[in-house]
């Protein structure tokens, strides 16, 4: 193996990350009772996005691994979002 020493995350850091995720879940559930109307979806998606980011960066190790993975992941997400966006060129104006 030519790669440098792998980064080892401590148990504690995992627990912290998990706690953050659970708190965000709690917020997300709580927010729905607030009757935000149309903002509802936006907030829920933002929170989910934040959670997904946390999972990607810490659990999936993007922070410590080869930067290539981060670039690819961002690129893939961008492609997906663009596809979604372009599709809505149709549905928003039908």
């Amino acid at each position, binding site marked *: 193996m030519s790669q440098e020493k792998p980064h080892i*995350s401590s148990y504690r850091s995992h627990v912290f990350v*998990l706690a953050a995720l659970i708190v965000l879940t709690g917020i997300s559930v709580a927010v729905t009772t607030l009757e935000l109307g149309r903002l509802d979806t936006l907030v*829920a998606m933002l929170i*989910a996005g934040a959670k997904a980011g946390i999972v990607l960066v810490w659990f999936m190790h993007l922070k410590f691994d080869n930067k290539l993975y981060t670039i690819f992941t961002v690129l*893939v997400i961008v492609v997906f979002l663009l596809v*979604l966006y372009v599709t809505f060129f149709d549905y928003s104006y039908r």
Partner: protein
Amino acid sequence: MEKNAEHTHVHRDDEGDKLGMWLFIFTELLLFGMLFLVYAVYRYRNPVAFQLGGEELDVFLGTLNTVLLLVSSATVAMSISAIQKGLKKHALVFLGITLLIAVVFLVNKYFEWGAKIEYGFYPGGEALLELGHGTILFFGLYYVMTGIHALHILIGIGLFIYVFQQIRADKIHSTDYIWLENTGLYWHLVDLIWIFLFPLFYLIH
């Protein structure tokens, strides 16, 4: 990491294996991505029905499953840390917990689905067909999306069992743990998907 019987060169490339796993994860992301696209389109076209549909689902069960998956994600990650440090016992325990949670998740799903199906709320079911188009779509998507997600959980369980065996047999250890790492990545993906499924189906009104 596995060498080829026909080939003289022994070539192990953990980084390559991980890259392969990431690429596979990308295909999965787009696969689910397209389901999200379908969902987005139909939600946009049937806002009321989707809202009402969402209210039919059990937020408590959904939240429980979310938390369960998050915990299991953390335990796989910890199991990787453990193996990296050479703590075989810890790794096995964490992995065991993950496995257990995965099974519990499926059991919850079983009860959740079961209750709906009993009322005839399944694709092609009488009770569902009597409702409006938007509701049919909502539940169609609900079954398809959580169903495909559950399929991934099943595959994950299979992988966990395999990896568990391998750790026990010392095939996976502190200098060769790419199988565990890739399984972990896969499991995080399953979690990632659920992070979006949960608010989309259970929360937003």
